């Protein structure tokens, strides 16, 4: 197990390094951040000064070299736009995104799994058919549109929930959290539902497929024959066996929720990392883009590791070994 983790971490370090090279050279090809930054009226002298202050007067390979050296010291460069360390700016926005992603993941689990089990156990019922058709909508409607529609209905027309923003936060261990206040909860509800929509549908479908497959297998029949209660058969024997694909997918999707909640964060003006990255891309704030992608690579690496460990807990047949592949 330890060897496995060490090997995985070393692989990850390599991935991070390659990523840094690709991203750094990639963002350096596109556009001219100085043109985006300076005021129209600035003359050439002023432009040259800005170029120098952002270190863009050096050739790109020198810039990359400096970046790597500084990165080892934990400095991913200063944001072109804000002038503050890129890492610090991203970390400031992190709690908002993690909070949103976690709440939405939680929603998709508590809504998706029961509905999926229901639809799997009673596929012929009308209610199951409604659930399954509904899940197609969850897949196919663009989240930008759904988000705006939810704002129109629940905020503008009904006035039940606030339309945008994050609401009141409380500080816990130095981190600002909003889901612990009533106001914060009312703010997080719509964006979380919007973000959860796709994953809920995914969970429903995966769970249903798993249940449909498992209910006919011998161990379920045996459990029933043994006289176990229906609840125990479903909650223990069935659930444990259908969870593997669900956890794999949710693990990967969680990374996606964190990294690419861009659309939801933009629509709901949620002050998270997704909104930050899209602004950074538009204004060519290269250090932010590079630092962000570095962090996202790390997040994915960690999530995959956690998923692998969860496997072994759920399914005793899967033992983490020093996998050669």
């Amino acid at each position: 197990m330890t060897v496995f983790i060490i090997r995985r971490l070393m692989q990850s370090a390599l991935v991070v390094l390659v990523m840094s090279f690709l991203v750094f050279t990639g963002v350096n090809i596109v556009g001219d951040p100085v043109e985006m930054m300076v005021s129209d009226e600035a003359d050439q002298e002023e432009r040259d000064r800005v170029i120098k202050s952002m270190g863009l007067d050096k050739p790109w390979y020198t810039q990359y070299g400096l970046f790597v050296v500084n990165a080892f010291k934990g400095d991913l460069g200063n944001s072109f736009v804000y002038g503050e360390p890129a890492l610090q700016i991203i970390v400031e926005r992190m709690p908002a995104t993690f909070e949103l992603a976690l709440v939405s993941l939680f929603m998709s689990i508590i809504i998706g799994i029961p509905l999926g089990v229901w639809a799997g156990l009673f596929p012929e019922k009308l209610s199951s058919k409604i659930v399954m058709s509904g899940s197609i909508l969850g897949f196919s409607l663009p989240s930008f549109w759904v988000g705006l529609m939810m704002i129109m209905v629940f905020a503008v027309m009904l006035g039940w929930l606030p339309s945008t923003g994050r609401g009141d936060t409380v500080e816990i261990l130095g981190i600002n959290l909003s889901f612990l206040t009533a106001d914060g909860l009312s703010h997080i509800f719509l964006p979380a539902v919007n973000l959860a929509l796709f994953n809920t549908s995914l969970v429903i479908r995966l769970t249903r497929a798993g249940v449909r497959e498992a209910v006919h297998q011998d161990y379920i029949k045996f459990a029933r024959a043994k006289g176990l209660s229906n609840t125990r058969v479903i909650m223990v024997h069935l659930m444990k066996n259908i969870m593997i694909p669900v956890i794999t997918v949710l693990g990967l999707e969680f990374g996606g929720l964190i990294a690419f909640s861009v659309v939801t964060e933009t629509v709901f003006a949620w002050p998270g990392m997704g909104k930050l990255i899209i602004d950074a891309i538009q204004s060519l704030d290269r250090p932010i883009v590079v630092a962000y992608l570095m962090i996202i690579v790390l997040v994915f690496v960690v999530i995959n590791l956690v998923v692998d460990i969860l496997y072994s807990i759920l399914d005793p047949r899967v033992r983490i070994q020093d996998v050669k592949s």
Partner: protein
Amino acid sequence: MYFKKTLAVGALAAMTAITLPLSASAETLTIGLGSEPTSIDPHYHNLGPNNQIAQHIFSRLVEQDEKQRLTPGLATSWEAINETTWEFKLRKGVKFHDGSDFNADDVIFTMKRAPAHPNARSSFKLYTHGGGKEYKKIDDYTIQVTTPRPYPLMATDLSTVHIVSNEIGDATWEGEFNNGNAAIGTGPYKLVKWTKGEILSLERYEGYHADKPMWTKVEIKPIKSAPSRLAALLAGDVDFIDSVPTVDISRLKKDPKLSLSQGVSNRVIYLHLDQFRDVAPFTTAKDGSEIKNPFKDVRVRQAISKAINRDLIIDRVMEGVAIKAGQLLPEGFFGRSAKLKPEAYDPEGAKKLLAEAGYPDGFKTVLHGPNDRYINDAKIAEAIAQMLSRIGIDTTPDTMPKSVYFKRAKNKGPTAPQEFAFVLVGWGSGTGEPSSPLKSLLATYDKEKGLGSSNRGLHSNLEMDKVLGDALATVDDAKRAELLAKATEIGIGQDVGIIPLHYQVNTWAAKKGLKYTARTDERTLAMGVEKE
């Protein structure tokens, strides 16, 4: 229902809040802004979104009113005491937010700090030291500024620079402003807290030296997505928004719950054509063979101007929300030409001019433009391409994100001209008079003198340069206005150095009962929002 609370409370407290009248919040103004400042430091980034926030917290020696006319600020009066010296009398009894006195030392400190900001993304050096300005403290409430040559734009230049307190010390930069420690000004509002991307809270400064604004608290939320910003207003989460998208305006005007304010801006949208290279990129004969640059012929430029139906663009593309342009600034601004009118739509005349210029069958070209910079920019480019194709100039519109576009459209003088031959761009005159666009867009490129920095078509006319040079050295306002008008008439009227299309009109929307005084500088200020 949604209640504003400053303290974190549980559900129980939230329920009791329902029964309480929220009278206190009546004095709070919540604004949804389409843009966000990059810093609170007023000298960090000379950019619209930053300057509009800075104007809440800081004051300037000379202020600009909603039409960008100069009005007394921290200076009560100013005059040229001789050809090369301006004297500013400072306001007495003004106190900074921290209680310290404002005097000449703060001005001297500001003028030293602003151009020397090491991290500035776009500094104010052009304004604080352009023309070789030197500052001298005469007494605590008198400042003299000298320049080697006569410098008429003194007050205009200084109306862009926000005054900070000298007590913040020599090495205090944007970080200390962003966290609020050094954000000490003399403006109408005090900074309470800025959480990037989330909220900027301001509180009224009771010791403000001029008319106090009506709102005791202001909360500014950045909501970049236009439909979301509008939804936030409709849902009552914010009281007031800026940059209302043109497609929604006609519908919103009928909404009884809202009140809209509109005003022309100082931003002109125009076309720039390559007037320098012998062979223009992307421009060929209709069969694809190489031709010499047709845009160098003034008749072709005139033909293009005549072929554009500005009324149609404003009516269909801009939904009526724009004013057609014939020069650099709309009516009411200083130094405007009374003679120049927007070119009338005349396709027959345009065809005739093309034939005279030797292109009876027209030619092929590409119109490049941004698609996320100006109001409806991509649609304007498409409309113009169609109109030009009608007179025989087969034009393909090619628009791209501004982050890509402005690098490729960057012109670094005759040795490194831009990649394109025919571009759509815009220009906002921060100073509220035409000398800045004349210097940047139409004057002959000269790096040393800082001229022609955005002259993407490399227009050059020595006569215009001379008139402009004279204007920039004429202190007498009436004479200068005349010279600026003359330079515009040469650069645009005679040379068609650029083809002006229209002036942008900005729209703000507020909930019923509030009204905003539209500003030509496009700024959104809490001070301008009043109850009807």
